[in-house]
């Protein structure tokens, strides 16, 4: 090979070798291209918190929060009757893994029964797996609607000097590393069967000619093997019998091996149930929102929502946050996942009163997140207003504001 070609080949091989060692950072997840109505009217997210943003491989952090399948769930989605859901985490692939999931206080491995208006207080224990900085979100998937993302956070997973493994305990007490459990056995088995297939092909294609057989096969009936002409010989038949016997023996040996090595097996499990109601779902409802309208001024990036809020409780209630899709707006100083809003005339509503609140945000995020697109099929802003009554009780009041678009 010429030196120039050798160098080129070397460069290509080196580039190829680098392929598996790269771990780039990831950005937001493309949720902006989901329809605004899908994101805002389907599932609401309240108080999503990440316990930390730096972990080593194998170490865990938690994502907690409350997700509500909104009463405003659109009739065109999942036929208007969401019934099956799945809460998990979203990341650029399994760079983090889910180790534990509780919904409304109970362990929930798989899918759950959901319903419109259902409230699900979730806790996900997530372990770092692949070193890098990743954008991680909780997610709520609803059958027939797809996967909806909650607020995301950058999580840095650092390489663990002790190495990485993913231990789980079998029913027989043995601890295994799920990352590579039985991988050599799997590959060896697949390779052995592959080699048998290659051997069969070599048998027929190397000592025998191929294309020139057409001159003969085109002159003999289909359902003959051409033995009288030497196309297939008695020896071929015997050798293929040995192949078949050998393959059958391999399967018998393999079967006996798995029966002895893994004597206790069961079919894959599907666990589906309706999680218990959280306390907040059966708490007395004191807050109600109605008659909401909203406008957005592109020039000043100002979003304004006017909403009538009624307090039918016995004590004053305070507006703590307004959440919509993965955005969380708070009056006062925002936390790491929050954004700021102004509330007029006041965040407090007296008992028995109905007050018109004006919520204002000066934030380009509405445009950046493509939530107020004139080209969208539905022009509404749907979200949750979170109220506290001062005595520890909380209410989630859904608000659906008619958007008045400004076309200029």
């Amino acid at each position: 090979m010429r030196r120039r070609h050798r160098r080129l080949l070397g460069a290509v091989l080196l580039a190829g070798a680098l392929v598996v060692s790269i771990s780039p950072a990831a950005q937001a997840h493309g949720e902006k291209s989901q329809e605004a109505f899908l994101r805002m009217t389907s599932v609401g997210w309240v108080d999503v918190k990440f316990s930390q943003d730096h972990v080593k491989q194998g170490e865990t952090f938690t994502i907690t929060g409350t997700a509500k399948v909104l009463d405003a769930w659109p009739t065109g989605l999942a036929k208007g009757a969401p019934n099956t859901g799945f809460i998990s985490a979203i990341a650029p692939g399994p760079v983090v893994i889910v180790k534990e999931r509780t919904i409304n206080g109970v362990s929930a491995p798989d899918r759950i029964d959901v319903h419109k208006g259902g409230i699900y207080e979730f806790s996900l224990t997530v372990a770092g797996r692949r070193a890098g900085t990743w954008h991680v979100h909780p997610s709520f998937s609803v059958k027939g609607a797809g996967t909806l993302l909650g607020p995301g956070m950058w999580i840095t997973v650092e390489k663990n000097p002790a190495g990485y493994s993913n231990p789980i305990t079998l029913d027989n007490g043995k601890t295994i590393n799920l990352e590579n459990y039985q991988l050599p056995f799997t590959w060896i088995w697949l390779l052995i069967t592959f080699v048998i297939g290659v051997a069969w092909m070599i048998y027929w294609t190397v000592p025998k000619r191929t294309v020139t057989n057409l001159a003969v096969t085109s002159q003999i009936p289909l359902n003959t093997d051409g033995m009288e002409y030497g196309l297939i010989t008695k020896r071929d038949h015997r050798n293929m019998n040995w192949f078949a016997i050998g393959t059958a023996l391999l399967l018998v040996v393999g079967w006996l091996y798995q029966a002895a090595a893994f004597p206790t097996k069961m079919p894959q499990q599907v666990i589906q149930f309706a999680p218990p109601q959280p306390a907040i779902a059966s708490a007395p409802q004191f807050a109600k929102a109605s008659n909401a309208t909203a406008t957005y001024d592109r020039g000043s990036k100002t979003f304004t929502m006017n909403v009538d809020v009624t307090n039918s409780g016995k004590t004053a209630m305070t507006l703590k946050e307004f959440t919509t899709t993965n955005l969380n707006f708070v009056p006062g100083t925002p936390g790491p996942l929050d954004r700021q809003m102004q509330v007029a005339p006041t965040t407090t509503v007296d008992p028995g009163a109905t007050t018109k609140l004006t919520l204002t945000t000066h934030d380009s995020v509405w445009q950046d997140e493509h939530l107020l697109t004139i080209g969208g099929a539905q022009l509404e802003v749907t979200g949750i207003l979170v109220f506290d009554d001062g005595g520890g009780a909380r209410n989630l009041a859904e608000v659906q504001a008619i958007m008045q678009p400004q076309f200029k």
Partner: protein
Amino acid sequence: MATDAKTLELRELVNKQYRYIDRKWDAVFWITAIFVVGAAADITKQLFAGDWDFWTDWKDRQWWPIVTPFAIIIIGSALQYIQWLAWRFPTGMTYTAVGLFLCTFVGRWVQWGAFVYYPMNYVWPATMVAAAIFADWVLLKTKSFILTSVIGAILFSVTWWISNYIPLAPYLQPAHWMDRIVTVADVQGIEYIHSQTPEYLRIVEHGSLRTFLGETQYVSLVFGATVAIAGYWIGQFIGRGLAIWPIGRFIKRW
């Protein structure tokens, strides 16, 4: 019995040396064709039965033994017809199996492993090779596609299941996880997140009114075998109608 002139002529033709047709034609044919054969088998498998093949927690006992043999026997059957007709080689199913394994192995390792970082013991592909050996062996013995479609397809689907249950077995062991007992495969499915494919999409056995005293597995195998027979004839249509029939035929008015 004296050998007739035609037989002698054909015997000579088998070994005839040609001016321009040397072994390179064979090499080019076998090596270039395996790309399209493997790819055809792979895309058929991926879009008819792919999800069951991608993940261990989908390789269940109710659906997997039905959809996968059906999907993978199709192209193999077409190749059986072509390679028997053209060369009298009982190699169509095995050739397809070898090509399919190469395509799938590259796909899993380069894409599912190196690109999106799933552990290989979660996304390993099922093998078709052992099943293919028996299907080709039946064709060699019977020289008949009708008999191969019945005997061969049944042997194919049962052998396919056995040869893939063996590597699946360790992942069906019960494990303690989240206050429950689930299989190792279930744990893989839940831990190694695939964000856009939520768990409820799994089309696997999830309890039924009648489990026939635990015979679900065997009922699926028998049904899978009959569905494989149908798949075999779809493959025959592809081989006969789309690969062989067009030879030397032209559309006169187009």
